[in-house]
């Protein structure tokens, strides 16, 4: 399908586009970001510096960027997909290179006003390319082995690069988001069943072989897996963090301990309280009501995205919106699971709330694409 198919006469032009933005979605985004500012103000002990003020500036830049992207027709972004993907892969390779010469794991590129992590950008670039790929691919070919293998390569190349940084969290996120994109595009169930069965079999084999002569991993690797699966077996390391996080969350109770009254965060029992564990501070200070409110806001964002995607007759737009929504979902689902002790600790921020430039910028770019698809949808 090409842009020639878009009925241009139905698409708003010029400043009128602003009226066709998905405004509820934009307001939800601002609302979530404001919760983030509030929490950053709180964890800094009631101060805009060092986090809240910077975060507000970044959000402002990101929000404007989102609107600008939304104004650009969606078919332009589809045409940019391969370029964005290739460019981000190159950046990942570049980071790998400078990281090596720098003598340490360096994951970012200095843009002057912020440090950009190519691995974050890849989360959107991958979704963009897969959406474009399945838009281009005739539907009949979707489940043919070759045309299944190609997107797998597209997913695995950046995953491998990210994994070598090493950044397990992002790698898993890329893999999952890519898989979900393939699922949405209509790849046959049997492929997913096979992959899932294969993974299940491998995991079973790894665990069953433990302690036997033919065990698949070294002993220290098993011990790492143990800690990964059961943080309490390492009470002073990861286990300490997760325990303190759970205590903070649980002690919030129904109504919370009050703004800036969270003892766990104020007294530094919480690790990374301004980034990955910021949700615990929210849950501690505003309780179940505060935590569930944020979850509802996130849920509404997902619902608005899905509604927008399903009402859009353009395959690329639908896939793109659902991909961005899925990426967004994976962010907060993994983060919340982690701080509630449902998942192992991996470095995934709470989207739009955690302090950090790259993730926020990338998500706002993603939402810019969603808005663009919404504005330029077939009517």
């Amino acid at each position, binding site marked *: 399908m090409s842009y020639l198919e878009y009925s241009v006469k139905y698409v708003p032009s010029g400043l009128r586009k602003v009226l066709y933005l998905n405004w509820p979605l934009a307001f939800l985004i601002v609302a979530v970001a404001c919760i983030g500012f509030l929490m950053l103000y709180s964890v800094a002990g009631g101060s805009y510096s060092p986090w809240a003020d910077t975060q507000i500036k970044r959000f402002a830049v990101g929000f404007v960027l989102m609107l600008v992207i939304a104004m650009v027709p969606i078919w332009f972004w589809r045409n940019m997909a391969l370029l964005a993907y290739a460019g981000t892969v190159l950046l990942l390779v570049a980071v790998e290179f400078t990281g090596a010469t720098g003598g340490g794991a360096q994951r970012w590129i200095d843009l002057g006003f912020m440090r950009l992590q190519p691995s974050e950008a890849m989360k959107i670039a991958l979704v963009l390319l897969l959406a474009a790929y399945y838009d281009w691919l005739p539907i009949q070919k979707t489940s043919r082995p070759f045309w299944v293998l190609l997107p797998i390569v597209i997913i695995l190349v950046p995953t491998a690069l990210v994994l070598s940084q090493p950044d397990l969290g992002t790698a898993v996120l890329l893999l999952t988001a890519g898989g979900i994109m393939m699922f949405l595009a209509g790849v046959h169930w049997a492929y997913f069943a096979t992959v899932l069965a294969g993974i299940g079999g491998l995991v079973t084999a790894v665990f069953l072989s433990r302690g036997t002569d033919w065990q698949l991993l070294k002993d220290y690797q098993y011990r790492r897996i143990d800690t990964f699966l059961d943080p309490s077996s390492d009470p002073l390391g990861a286990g300490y963090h997760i325990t303190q996080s759970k*205590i903070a969350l649980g002690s919030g109770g129904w109504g919370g301990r009050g703004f800036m009254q969270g003892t766990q965060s104020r007294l530094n029992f919480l690790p990374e309280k301004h980034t990955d564990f910021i949700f615990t501070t929210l849950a501690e200070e505003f309780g179940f009501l505060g935590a569930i409110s944020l979850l509802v806001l996130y*849920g509404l964002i997902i619902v608005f995205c899905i509604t927008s995607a399903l009402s859009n007759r353009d395959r690329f737009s639908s896939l793109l919106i659902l991909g961005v929504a899925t990426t967004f979902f994976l962010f907060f689902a993994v983060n919340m699971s982690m701080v*509630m002790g449902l998942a192992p600790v991996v470095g995934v921020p709470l989207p739009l709330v955690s302090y950090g430039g790259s993730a926020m910028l990338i998500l706002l770019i993603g939402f810019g694409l969603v808005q663009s698809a919404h504005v330029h949808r077939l009517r």
Partner: protein
Amino acid sequence: MRRSPRDTAISARRISRRGLILGGAQLAFMGVLGARMRKMQVEEADAFRLLADENRINIRLIPPARGQIFDRNGVVIADNEPSYRIVMVREDVPDVEAMLDTLSGILPLSDEDRERALKASRATPLLPVTIVDRVTWDDVSRVAVNAPALPGVAPEVGLSRIYPLGPEFAHVAGYVGPVSDRDLARYEDPPPLLRIPRFQVGKVGVEAQLESVLRGVAGTKRVEVNNTGRVMRELDRTEGTPGADLQLTVDHQLQSYVQARLGEESASAVVIDCETGDLLAIASSPTYDPNKFVEGISVADYGALRDNDRRPLASKTVQDTYPPGSTFKMATLLAGLEAGLVGPNDTVKCNGFLEISGRKFHCWKRAGHGNVDLERSLKESCDVYYYDLALKVGIERITAMARRLGLGERHGVPMSAESAGVAPTREWKRSRFGKDWVIGDSVNASIGQGFVATTPLQLAVMTARIATGRAVSPRLVKTVDGAEQPTGAGAPLDLNENHLRLVRKAMYAVSNDRRGTAYGSRVIADGLRIAGKTGTSQVRNITAEERRRGVTRNEDLPWERRDHALFVNYAPADAPKIAVSVVVEHGGGGSTSAAPIARDITLQALYGEDPPLDAYPTKDREKIRRQQAELKKLRRDSERPGSGNRA
């Protein structure tokens, strides 16, 4: 390329279906997250709240101020003074080594201090570590001024014990020290207070015996700490109760005099109020400075005290027992009188010895006293008279009388290791030595030798009881927390007053009759005359070998084998106010070394200051004048207030 409308429709349907599946799955997972939140924050909230409070709230004990100890006139014997120390909070010190270097430029820091601080900072990274203890206020100021250069270093203040009078009350008040494992072992469940770092408990003397009164009750405060254990703020506090103040019966002026008068002799003296049993002075020499123990005595200093053969650490007044020698004769005499087996005019002929079942018991006067009546027997301390009396009266009556007079029993004075002494009986000997009592034991006991053993305190009590006829018992603590303690006036002893009068008259003669053994140490001031009794207790017999070599006199023996010299007296003789006992270890004869000390102490106690010289016989006055001047100088020198702080 173009795509058929059918194509697009299929694709749209597929995306719709799978999009809805995905959306459903996502919402379902969010439901799981919400349920998990509800479980943790609503159902288990209380448990988590408890854990959060456990995290942040520490309960700290506030050590109570220890009760002070005063003398009977309100002079402080044991006090609390602020004690400053320099501590560091490890997490705030960037570089411990560098910090210690900076600090050593500001205040004296020994290599030992450095080592300890480094070790402690590694061992307990989360708690404040004491770098130097007992620094002066000047050092504290210097650290405060240099605070910017010393991050994480701060002065702290606590209370520490100090004994302003130094050595004078070492054996009475004792001293405190840091809690040791032995202190903890005394409790089945040691009070948490004892776990406070640097908490002080009584180790010896009144400090130890009345620990429970002096200690007080700890307060508690709840503090909020951060993840590194640092106190952020105090949440609330419950004040404890400071320990009760004690007032002793001791008069520090008199105690100071007695201590000075005993000097470096291995000796002890007790002054007891005949009316109330108040211990006006209870001194043991040589003594030591209790402040050294509070600060942590050096190994060398402690070794010197421990190995000194005059035993400065012993409270000889209550803890050491001596054969009372001839001071015991009053007990034997009273036993005989009460039994009606001897009268004032009955005489015994002393030939210098008495032969009993083939064994010769000698009188101290080898030539013998000739015919001896009751008064003369005591005045000249004839032993044979008492040998004879013992045969008639028997050990049961003698021991019973000794007990009535306060010998052979503990008096419950709150000083360390009070001994009961021994007032021997047949059963006692059998159970102790597994041997039967023989007549010779009774004979020896009659003159306070053999198995009889008494403490200087008991001798003073005995003398007070003879002087008053009442069961005076010693009292060391006058008030606790302002409440007057029961006096030791005691009930009448139920002794025949005529018998007591006979004994008192004889004791008067000891000190005032020209032939009395203590005549040389008499007082001539009217109304202040003393009635006393000398005693000499053998440490060991002179061996036949030594006798052959010509050693017959005590002075020829090495110090540690010389006899103990004892003297007991009460005064004034006609209206007894005080009773005094003096024991000079290895001092030779009671009349020569103990009686003069007892006389000086008696006069000092009665006058409340240096007595006028005309209270003394003319020939002694010059000597006494020199002695008074000397002691005055000695006491002035020792009156410097002790300092717990580092110089």
